[in-house]
């Protein structure tokens, strides 16, 4: 939010965003006149690059960061500090964090997902424009190639390490698991967030040039799965359960003690499961001529503490050598808006 923004500005922004989102997700343009039917002397209401494109499965997800409720120096800018969920705290520092302020934090977030990146960018661009004067763009990330399947109807996609990512992800079809691990329940509170969730965003740079020079066997050891099939190194096919006890002829565990799948597994984390919804990114190259590539990790969970637990387990992750967490943010995601209402209305009721 802008420095001078008031509670009214915040509410009006959420209303304007909701109205715009309702149109965008139907494949419609912003405003009654859209990109080309407005008066000739005024800038068009819609920026126009999605003209002629379908809705492309666009979804828009809005979230509220800890600082929206209370700044680090304790200022309650919008009169909502008392409505802050206890669980919504800035993430602690993790081993290996190399966070850059330019990709960290934020009062509000918008995630736009679509089958066509042009449609997603159109949404972000227009929502940013609507916000000028009330909120400013702090950071943004364009991703491609969903890295975690979120439905049993999807083939497991690969991340930029070349491995299948999301084999064991929560799937939309597992309704009771999603209730258990993703949606905030009434008992969790606060009331305005019930049926909502928490989003953790981590911009993870991959040192892919180094990774690419690792032997296949080493790559598979780091992950704990085969690169082709995605099967556990303990045997079977992609969806076979991991067996951490299985050993090779020399008595060494088939799935390395520091393998990523072992450390992140629910069995190692008191049953915690995250709904991952991340994307690959390549932001050109860095000054050393390396592709500025990685994984934009996004996970939805019933409490940020679930993510914290898994991330702490990953402190000794063999993969840590090839990645660097450069961006981080956490947001409370209010439940969807009802017709005639707006996103986050419960927070201001």
């Amino acid at each position: 939010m802008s420095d001078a923004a008031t509670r009214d500005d915040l509410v009006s922004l959420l209303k304007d965003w909701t109205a715009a989102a309702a149109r965008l997700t139907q494949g419609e343009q912003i405003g009654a006149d859209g990109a080309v039917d407005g008066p000739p002397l005024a800038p068009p209401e819609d920026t126009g690059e999605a003209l002629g494109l379908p809705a492309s499965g666009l979804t828009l997800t809005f979230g509220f960061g800890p600082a929206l409720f209370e700044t680090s120096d304790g200022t309650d800018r919008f009169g909502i500090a008392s409505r802050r969920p206890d669980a919504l705290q800035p993430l602690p520092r993790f081993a290996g964090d190399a966070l850059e302020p330019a990709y960290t934090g934020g009062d509000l977030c918008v995630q736009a997902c679509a089958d066509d990146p042009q449609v997603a960018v159109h949404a972000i661009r227009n929502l940013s424009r609507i916000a000028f004067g009330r909120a400013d763009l702090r950071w943004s990330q364009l991703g491609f190639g969903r890295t975690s399947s979120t439905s049993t109807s999807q083939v497991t996609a690969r991340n930029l390490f070349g491995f299948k990512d999301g084999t064991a992800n929560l799937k939309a079809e597992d309704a009771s698991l999603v209730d258990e691990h993703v949606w905030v329940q009434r008992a969790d509170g606060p009331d305005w967030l019930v049926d909502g969730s928490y989003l953790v965003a981590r911009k993870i740079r991959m040192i892919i040039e180094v990774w690419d020079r690792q032997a296949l066997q080493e790559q598979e050891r780091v992950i704990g799965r085969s690169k082709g099939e995605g099967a556990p190194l303990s045997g079977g096919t992609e969806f076979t359960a991991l067996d951490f006890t299985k050993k090779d002829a020399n008595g060494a565990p088939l799935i390395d003690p520091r393998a990523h799948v072992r450390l992140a597994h629910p069995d190692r984390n008191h049953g915690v499961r995250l709904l991952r919804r991340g994307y690959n990114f390549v932001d050109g190259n860095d000054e050393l001529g390396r592709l500025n590539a990685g994984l934009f990790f996004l996970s939805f969970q019933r409490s940020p503490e679930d993510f914290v637990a898994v991330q702490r387990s990953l402190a000794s992750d063999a993969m840590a050598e090839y990645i660097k967490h450069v961006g981080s943010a956490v947001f409370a995601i209010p439940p969807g808006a009802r017709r005639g209402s707006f996103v986050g209305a419960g927070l201001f009721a």
Partner: protein
Amino acid sequence: MSSRLVPVSVVLGAAVLALTGCVANHPSGGSSSALKVEIADDSCAVSSHTAKAGTVSFALSNTGSDVNEFEIYADDKLRIVGEKENVTPGQSVSYVAQLEPGTYYTACKFQMVGAPVGLAKFTVTGKATEASASDKAREKQAVTNYVSYIKSQVGELLPATQTFADAYKSGDDDKARSLFASTRVFYERIEPTAEQFGDLDPKIDYREVDAAADGIDWTGFHRIEKDLWPPAADALNSDGTSATQNWAPSTPEQRAQFADDLVANVQKLHDLVTDPSFTVTLADISNGAIGLLDEVATSKISGEEDWWSGTDLSDFAANVQGAEVAYGNVRDIAESKGSAGKKLVGRIDKQFSALDALLGTYGSIDSGFVNYREVDDAARKELSDQVNALAEPLSQLTHTVLGVKE
């Protein structure tokens, strides 16, 4: 400064009134007697510093040695709301202005160029006039006042440029450096107007990289700037090329040439805007306000404008002031366009104040600004955010002023 083409709006041959900011020269019965304005070469004494709202009469007499003019400025001391030009020595003439309640400043301008003389606060009290002027009258007034403002800025630019160029030419670099930003302010406030005159802006205000790209001789303020703030041997131009590539410090002969050219080109600009045929359209005014903000958003925010002197914030502030004046001239028209017009004016007013306040934390045009190289990326983003916050509603101004029926 921009290489963007701007529609030319000089209307040649049209009948344009030189007399401005006034109503019929016979005040209605109820009006009190005229205020006396004693004009001399170095003073401008008005017999009272207050008046009642409505028609205000002034009796001007010029006891000085040369032609003079009387001006009434809005409370920003920039926007002209009324003026009487061409008051010759020994002449007594009456002048009537229509003034709403508010704070104004009166001043004279010896020889009709240079800085205002005898600037004094003038307060108008009472009730705002209820019967609003017709659209046509309001539009005519806006154009008249904006043309007066352009003339007053170029009128100040001319002698300031002469002094600056003289210092540079004579090798008094300290003095020239101290005058660089303050001289440019008059130009930056009316930049979109100067850009209408084809090749003048490139000659006066082109940056080295643009001149090189366009294949024209590099002259003007920025050529002089690089002599005054000479680059270190390993310094780079804004496009990353070596600062010394195709460049060497000017010889005294070259300095004389650049100085004379600059003055001559500013003189040309002055001739053009003081020509009786010079005018602007209402769209020029509101698009000028938008254009000035675009200038800020593209070349000032990035620090490319005053690459060697680091005086970008002064240009920035002058662009914003220029936009504010242009907006001020059409504000009433926009406000009269129903609830949407009122709402737009409210948004623009609010964001202008916020931008002025933010700029104020870096200095002022009168006292100078911090060097833009000392403004870090986070601070530049804050400035950019505020420019966006203003530019978004401001971009609706032309449509509201011209395209919306009352």
